[in-house]
């Protein structure tokens, strides 16, 4: 019965900039996936999503995305989230440009 919970992150887009952002443990929205809070259980995931949904003045469309623990913070479980965390493949725009250096 107790299927293992796939760890989650809360992600959304920034209201003004449109950028992909991630909810951190200390209630900030970070541009870096590595700073996201990795959520390990369902009740806490729901609680964090609920919190994010109350942040309408900062972000748009928050949702829970699958992730796993990597050496330097959460890593995306699905390629869609990997692209969101990096930017498009045809130009070096998006995060791969903004977070350079």
């Amino acid at each position, binding site marked *: 019965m107790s299927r293992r919970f796939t760890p989650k992150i809360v992600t959304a887009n920034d*209201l003004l*900039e*449109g950028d992909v952002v991630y909810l951190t443990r200390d209630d900030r929205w970070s541009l870096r996936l590595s700073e996201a809070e990795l959520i390990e259980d369902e009740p806490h995931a729901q609680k964090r999503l609920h919190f994010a949904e109350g942040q309408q003045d900062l972000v748009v469309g928050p949702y829970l995305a699958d992730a796993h623990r990597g050496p330097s913070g959460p890593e995306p479980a699905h390629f869609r989230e990997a*692209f*969101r965390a990096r930017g498009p493949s*045809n130009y070096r725009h998006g995060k791969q440009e903004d977070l350079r250096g």
Partner: protein
Amino acid sequence: MYTYNDFDEAFVRERVAQFSAQVERRIDGSLTEDEFKPLRLMNGLYLQLHAYMLRVAIPYGTLNGRQMRQLAMIAERWDKGYGHFTTRQNIQYNWPKLRDVPQMLSALADVGMHAIQTSGNTIRNVTSDHFAGAAADEIEDPRPVAELLRQWSTDHPEFQFLPRKFKIAITGSPNDRAVTKAHDIGLRMVRNDAGEPGFEVIVGGGLGRTPMVGKVIREFLPKADLLPYVEAIVSVYNLLGRRDNKYKARIKITVHENGLDKIRELVEARFTDLRREFSGADQELLGEIEAAFAAPDFVSKPAEAYDTARETDPVFRAWADTNLTAHRNADYSIVTISIKTHGQTPGDATADQMRVLADLAETYGHDELRISHEQNVILPHVHKADLPAIHATLKAAGLATANVGLISDIIACPGMDYCALATARSIPVAQQIATRFDELKLEHDIGPLKIKISGCINACGHHHVGHIGILGLDRAGVENYQITLGGDGTEDAVIGERAGPGFAYDEIVPAIERLIHAYLDLREEASETFLQTYRRLGAEPFKAALYPAEERSNAA
């Protein structure tokens, strides 16, 4: 060229003002996202994967130099210096900031452009033959009718909340370049036995999850009856169309579920009523619009420069052979400028390139430009004498790729590099196919071939009507590409047939290569196109090339 009247101008300005206020209220917290979202969509503003995206309508694909230059300015000032031309004859900006959007809309309004009805369950931007008004095979320029439809449908109170979005395409030529059979309503100009122009009316076509070729609901509709007849179709659909299931809400399903005969009966009955209400004002208006669309004053001058360039410059000749189309004036040509440089993103133009295009239109092209659903830019009216100069300018701007209609002239939707709905990427697949066949130097040998790629089942990349269609899917968390064969988007529209299991991201280009080599081996002579060979032999030999026996037995 047609310019907006005072009513349009006031309407667009008012919408910009309204939207500016709505953005402010969203930012200060008085509007929730749920309240704001339908408002921003009404103004063409989407939220995509990495950023907002602004979709701007280019009605029937027509614009002038000043408008193109403004699109360049907007790209540079508020975006990342480029724009993306889409299969719906729109331009999309991929990186706007929310606060800047009202200014972008205002800058568009300055040149009579807008982003209204590029979203939502309304009648969308009416698309048209990109060679309209210029093609040698055309009966009449379809754009006045397209403009009439635009004016009639814009903010039409009855049609703002249709069961689903509604797309109309129109062509004035019997050779359909506007994919009219894949639209909710398709209008194809034909002549009746008396030689009068009218429309073959096609209904219920569409791609997406349930692809269907449109059906002819009226073989000949006199031009004067067009508006009441289209209104009859839309109002029958508005009543009958399903609102309980988004996937069954398009008119193609309404036609499919009710049967063409029943729909025709209802439409004809409604048409009889509506026709009485149309007092003829629409025809007066059409007359005015037609005057505004009058052909430019074609000049006559010697065209030796063209012949000389053809003889002496093989690069020019190759470009002329692929990128020019016959004009109705024998001294003129239609120039298709490829926005498909090998390895680049199909449909993307930089601000600098847009300005070059604007200059060319103004200097040599009677100030007219078109955007094609195949994501290229057209100079519809060019005197042959000016072609060498145009080619030289294009070359310097990186816009002289001689590949129109060939394997690297690929339609690709934004896919998962931008689109929030995508299940896989399409742009890099297009880039790699184009690069690969350029390396192989096979492109011109292969000849006419349409590859179309969509990044999800919504089929914005028209993959169903590609001679080779590629659909990107998410199969158990990895990108997977399904191939369809034998599709055709012309007046003989055919939905392509699925070839078999999909291919992984790194297998799709080799698979296409096997397919093409099979075609080169199978064709009877060099002039037999891929589609002709496919029709002659059927899918089997192509499937055999895609799925070689040893791999099949290995997999077993």
